[in-house]
């Protein structure tokens, strides 16, 4: 059983479209992170959300942490081919004392020109 469930698993859209991907859990977390991983590279941290209901924006990307801190969403406006990649959400266990992150299985996004 996955602690973090991401949906959809795959998404293929045309350039200029909007999209939302989701990261859901039945557990409560103190914070949640979103990463993007391009082919042949390691994950790169996009944002960390901490407060329930928090909204953060990174250019055309909008991240929201659920009020109950159990889920999060990533919305991309006017997607571009450069947005193509694997989007991963990740959390640290409450007891964590270091670098252990638990990742979702990811959403594979393909933006076609």
């Amino acid at each position, binding site marked *: 059983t996955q602690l973090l469930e991401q949906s959809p698993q795959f998404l293929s859209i045309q350039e200029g479209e909007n999209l939302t991907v989701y990261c859901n859990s039945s557990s409560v977390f103190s914070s949640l992170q979103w990463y993007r991983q391009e082919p042949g590279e390691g994950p790169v941290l996009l944002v960390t959300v901490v407060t329930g209901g928090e909204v953060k924006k990174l250019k055309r990307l909008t991240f929201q942490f659920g009020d109950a801190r159990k889920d999060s969403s990533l919305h991309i406006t006017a997607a571009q081919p450069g947005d193509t990649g694997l989007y991963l959400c990740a959390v640290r266990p409450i007891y964590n004392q*270091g670098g252990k992150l638990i*990742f979702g299985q990811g959403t594979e996004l393909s933006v076609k020109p």
Partner: protein
Amino acid sequence: DAGVTQSPTHLIKTRGQQVTLRCSPKSGHDTVSWYQQALGQGPQFIFQYYEEEERQRGNFPDRFSGHQFPNYSSELNVNALLLGDSALYLCASSFEQNNSPLHFGNGTRLTVT
């Protein structure tokens, strides 16, 4: 300022063999974590090293072992390779303090035949 570097980038081994993967952390980082990423999945935590000791371990068998050197670089060793060990192995470095962001390398692609 060099980021996290991993070597080799690709490796092909035969079932039953042993393999050693290497990681140099980002300058100034003292903690190294290793992750296994199977195709189409999110990364899974293997273990973390700090002050040359294994500080935390994920759900991986004893065939997976590691080492951290005084210069903070690290090795991941896998013995008695199985076909299922084929994956992308990611190294991430950070500061020891809790919730310090992880910086990932581009990984080593291991194929076991």
